[in-house]
């Protein structure tokens, strides 16, 4: 699988860290109801088909990228900077809301 970084171009999947569904970019407001946090952290549409998720260009330009891709065929359909998603007013990150990558098996 190859992913087109909006800044660096077409790159190998191994340069990217996968964070999860794009819902992670829609962090609930402080004081939001517990149900909102449950939905944000746990519940997923989990589609078999087109999905949007967050990738971090860890071994490249360090950009957070929203990737639209197909979970059945692994085809990458579109990519854009997560920052641009925010500017379009679609409930993007609030600035400090960018997720931080975590690694399995390593302490924070």
């Amino acid at each position, binding site marked *: *699988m190859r992913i087109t970084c909006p800044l660096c171009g077409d790159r190998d*999947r*191994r340069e990217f860290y*996968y*964070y*999860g*569904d794009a819902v992670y970019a829609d962090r609930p407001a402080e004081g939001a109801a*517990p*149900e909102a946090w*449950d*939905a944000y*952290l*746990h*519940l*997923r*549409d*989990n*589609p*078999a088909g087109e*999905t949007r*998720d967050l990738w971090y260009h860890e071994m490249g330009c360090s950009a957070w990228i929203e990737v639209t891709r197909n*979970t*059945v*065929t*692994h085809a990458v359909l579109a990519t854009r900077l997560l920052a641009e998603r925010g500017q379009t007013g679609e409930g993007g990150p609030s600035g400090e809301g960018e997720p931080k990558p*975590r690694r*399995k*098996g390593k302490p924070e």
Partner: protein
Amino acid sequence: MRYSGFRVLAEGLGGNKGWRPAWRDPEPKAEYDIVIIGGGGHGLSTAYYLAKNHGLTNIAVLEKGYLGGGNVGRNTTIVRANYFLPGNQEFYSHSLKLWEGLEADLNYNVMHSQRGLINLFHSDGQRDAFARRGNAMINQGDDAELLDREGVRRHLPYLDFEQTRFPIYGGLLHRRGGTARHDAVAWGYARGADRRGVDLIQNCEVTGIDIEGGRVTGVQTTRGAIRAKKVGIVVAGRSGQVAAMAGMRLPVESHILQAFVTEGLKPVIDHVVSFGMGHFYISQSDKGGLVFGGDLDFYASYAARGNLPMVEHVMEAGMTLMPMIGKAKVLRSWGGIMDMTPDGSPIIDRTHVDGLYIDCGWNYGGFKAVPASGWCMAHLMATGEPHAVARRFRLDRFATGHLLDEEGTGSQHNLH
């Protein structure tokens, strides 16, 4: 037809003309008391224990493909009870006990082999963690032995003990751990359920769940509508789609886990060996193939096949741990669709719809859970109450904060 050594002998002398299909291929009836969606290991064992433990036999198992064609037919067959957290411990302990009596119970050879499982550790901190885990296993009533480096060497002399990145400090030996023949587990449960009157209906995909007044009334399928008083969703990686038919959004994300098998070799690996730091585990099948796997491909996927970076990673980990396997030729690899939850533990629970139950979220540990999952799901569906050993596998535990995060990696589905 009951299977026995005498039967094999008699059939051999009689030209093997007396064997009959192990289960019927019935047409679906218009109505059942209970419909189980999903003819994999967990669905079949649920139907079997509903019939055997609760005397309920007006049951259909609906499978969109063929029986056992999903994850129960594409895993690395490891059976163990080495969990740490209360909630998981008693469940997997119960499952292992069921495994130990499974062949006699099913009258079917599932080739359960308690060859011993060794989890390797590579630092003082990891040793402490494994000592603690071993003590928890012993307190639960299961077995564990902490081995030092020489202890591991006596069991696994072929490992590269001096590798510089992860030198082997020792291992936790779980003697009752081992493997089983994965397909045979599905077939054994299918035959056992069929013999008790359960209809196993293949090539029958559920396309809708009928709900009236907050109560389930049946399912729509590619072979017509089927009414049912109770419905169980037991569909592993496809849980998201089937639950959505009942208006549910689950704490599940589906991911790909790859596994590999080599050409048949003479016996060389006697145990199940788990190399957690390299994300690599291996055993040898009775046919001689080395069966091994690694970690998830890490991104949500339904492709049932993986990508090359994880293939490379798994091969590297294997060569790091046991360079002797380097000349073995890989015959094939495959991917299974894992229903990953945000805490790495499963769900066996009621839903917001009366009469609708769900068994899902097995991450990549579902195979060893097949007996107890069916046992507990059957108990839940028959009595309406959770079984004592599965009472913490609640659907609402993510909302309430009662997580069972065995690895302590937090709310990210792909990190468990």
